[in-house]
């Protein structure tokens, strides 16, 4: 019983850390702050689920945490891939240029 409450305390502490990450996500002045906060938030969600799985003795929850770990990583890398260029304006300009070259036949 006491281990259950200790695990609860750990889960709540992780939830507090999640809330702190959330406030960085709200405030984050640059785009990269937000990406960092989202990635870190995902890691903490995984931790919360792992603790929850041990807390309830439900080992299937751990599977979902595993899936989160993979999705979180892939999503972060994919987001960064969109912003690979030095700035978004260049990326957009390149895209519209490509559209102007390739999209000439749709008018």
């Amino acid at each position, binding site marked *: 019983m006491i281990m*259950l*409450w200790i695990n*609860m305390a750990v*889960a*709540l502490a992780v*939830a507090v850390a*999640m*809330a702190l990450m*959330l406030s960085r*996500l*709200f405030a*984050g002045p640059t*785009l990269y702050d*937000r*990406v960092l906060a*989202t990635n870190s*938030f*995902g890691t903490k*969600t995984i931790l*919360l*689920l792992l603790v*929850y799985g041990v*807390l*309830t003795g*439900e080992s*299937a*929850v751990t*599977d*979902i945490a595993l*899936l*989160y770990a993979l*999705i979180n990583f*892939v*999503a972060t890398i*994919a*987001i960064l891939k*969109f912003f690979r260029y030095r700035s*978004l304006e260049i*990326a*957009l300009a390149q*895209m519209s240029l*490509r*559209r102007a*070259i*390739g*999209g000439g*036949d*749709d008018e």
Partner: protein
Amino acid sequence: MIDMIVTDPTLLIEYTLMAMLLAVGVAIVRLRDLFAVVMLLGVYSLLSAAWFVSLDALDVGFTEAAVGAGISTLLLLAAMLLTARSAEPVSAIRHWSAFAVALAGGAALFYAIGDMPAFGDPDAPANAYVGLQYLERTQADIGVPNVVTAVLASYRGFDTLGEVVVIFAAGLGVMLLLGMGGRKPRKDGEGEE
């Protein structure tokens, strides 16, 4: 409420998740930087997936994490990059009329809350008949331990086929709108998921 928490301490985690969901929802409405809005929708999906897990809906949490937090975030991000970076501020009259609409709808729904079954009530009409039958029969009929999978793929297999048709139609629609093949491929081509 206190005795509910003592019988089921995991409710505490649910309450923290609810608080965070509310904060994220309000932030999505307030922010005008579309990148932040899209990231916050991903976080919202992740949080609701965690809530699904704590409400015993493991499969739903699984799908919501993969589809809601993964694919929709990427789709929205691609669309945002192809269109605009930030939203323009809304006029005061529009803000207040929308607020009035939300308030009226919310008031009507809150009025209806009294008729809802209590949270976690095993005798609620929604939990009494068909769901119980599925739980009792799955072992003999299908022999798959996961009841949700059994209902989705076997009892309700044709509905799932219909769902696949809907996804196919959506992919076709996206292709027709954005024009695959004849033009250069674009980032939004992931739309056929």
